[in-house]
């Protein structure tokens, strides 16, 4: 069994709760729905304008970050992979 590198573990620390939040909050626990890391949340109708604010609220609370208004853009938040990269980047700063 291969071990995780430090970076992978850190990414998983972000990815796991975000994924769980999306499944619980936007898919209502339905694990049968595919949720690949690069799937667009908007194009697949998982979030609407209120849903984005729910997601931002969760990120701020869970990771102790402040998401600036200008950062609420699809480039940062529209897929699991983008959210993980965004949070990882914020933490690095």
């Amino acid at each position, binding site marked *: 069994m291969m071990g995780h590198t430090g970076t992978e573990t850190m990414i998983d620390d972000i990815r796991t709760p975000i994924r769980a939040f999306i499944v*619980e*909050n936007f*898919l*209502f*626990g*339905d694990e049968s*729905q595919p949720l690949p890391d690069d799937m667009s949340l*908007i194009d697949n*109708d*998982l*979030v*609407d*304008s*209120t*849903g*984005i*604010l*729910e997601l931002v609220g969760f990120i701020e609370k869970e990771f102790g970050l402040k998401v600036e*208004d*200008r950062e*609420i*853009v*699809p*480039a940062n938040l*529209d897929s699991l992979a983008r959210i993980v990269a965004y949070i990882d980047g914020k933490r690095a700063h």
Partner: protein
Amino acid sequence: MCGVAGFFGNGVAPAEAGGLLNRMATSLSHRGPDDSGVHIDGMAGLAHRRLSLVGLSDGQQPMSDPSANLVISYNGEIFNYVELRNELIAKGRRFRTQSDTEVILHLYDEKGLDCLNKLNGDFAFALWDARQRRMVLARDRMGVRPLFHTRRGETLFFASEIKALLTVPGIEARLDPFALDQIFTLWTPLAPRTAFEGISELPPGHLMIVEDGRFEQRAWWRQTYPDAGDVRPRPDAVEELRALLNDATRIRLRADVPVGSYLSGGLDSSFVSALAARMRPEQLRTFSLGFDSDEHDESRWQSMMASELGVHHTAVRCTAGDIAALFPSVVAHVERPILRTAPAPLAKLSALVHDSGIKAVLTGEGADELFAGYDIFREAKLRRFCGRQPQSKFRTLLFQRLYPYLPGLQRQTPEYLARFFGAGDEQIDDPLYSHRPRFRSTSSAKLFFSPDLKQQLGNYDATAELVSMLPADFYRWHPLHQAQYLETVFLLPGYILSAQGDRVMMANSVEGRFPFLDPRVIDFAASLSPNMKLNGLREKHILKQAAKGLVPDAIVGRPKQPYRAPDSQTFAATQPRYLGGVLSDGAIGKGGLFNAAAVEKLKNKVLKQETASFRDDTAFIGIVSTQLWLDTFSTRAE
């Protein structure tokens, strides 16, 4: 306003006909508490429940002509009956009553089925023509008055509401899964489909003829628009519109009882009330609805208009507790799942009208469809505008201006706004372009459909069925007219005039009258060039011009606020006891339509939030109303 029911065919034993017709009529007594009657002629049976408004003493139904060859059971009003009656008298016809019902009988006798084109009114009727041994069912142009039918063997049964058909032995209530898919996509079943499998609606502007064992259904009227680019100059359009609305309102005040008016605080009902107030010798009575939340309440504007007109105004406040308490009975009246609670407060408003001793009210319905008032028209125009410059942040920020009442949108960046509205990344030649974002976001509620239901539906696509119903000339119309057609032909009768109109008004024996849906106004509005309706992003442009001097500038110029009611927050605030029952694992499992575990999570989410997303609201109200529908109707068939 009344209730109609009946049958045609050999499937009803003579000894049972009277009892059956009485049962059907009794189930419609809310539509007509004043009188009832039946008529049986062998294999034809007609029943009627009456709400007396015109010809109080001599308008009993079913009504026959002197020869008893023609018999009619009719629901509605023919507003130009005075003029039609005078024309018929001039031709030598003699009338026995003062009612509009008798006018239809004479006109049919004179013109046959062409009589329908002469009628300016809202109607649904069954006419038995004993000479030709044929039953005719007909419905008004826009579908103001309802009419449903089903068959048992070769026998046709029909009624104003489906609950009357469910009193016929052998007719059972089963939810049509495709209708559910349509509602969870388009907000309405596509007529003739209804929520009930095997029970059909006679579509608006259609008639059905049953004769010699043949069933023929066809359109006698349909909505149309000029080809794009075919625009005639209309220098006098504003004056023309004002004159038309004046006359449309005048003839809708015809009744032997006082007619009141709704005042929502918006332009349309203010305009209609202003016209009516000038015509009534006695003080006009107006009625309005208020909410506790500022987000939904328009009391300030209602009071302004009432005091401007000097009318006798009565307002009622609708609380979350009222909506939650009324919701199950509203589902029973509208007879279909709904995605919003908005019909419930309107049931409270019609109860106020009834308790005030008023039987008929004018409303402003139809103006948003005819004169491009809805946000969706502006949204589609803006999406096209943004699509031409997808990188423009300024353009996408305009979406916030469309929806000042949606706080979630106000916090969004231009990048998200562009994505939410799909600006620039859609097919502009899609016939459903204007409505595609709405259909897509509504469809997300289908996430909760059970695996069994999903399997039953297979690859069914409600939007593809909608496209298949569009007429050939649709593709030649201006994009605004295409969008107006979708609202006017599908959503107006399928939701606005039924779930928010006839059904919640008749629940309290109140008749709605709609000056904007006068056929002359409909034709006039359709013939106008798009920019006379949607001028830039200014909605109802010509109507605002016509309202000047009649409606205060503050109301004419205020941003449009669509009628909405609190949705899932209603249930979060009140937690009504029935919710636990209809959303229990047992009830969800028994219904078989939804995924119980997902519904439980949705319930837990929305019931602890102050505000829910559009997506969660839609799913939650849709699921609660579907479960209430099952509870109300399908258990009855067991």
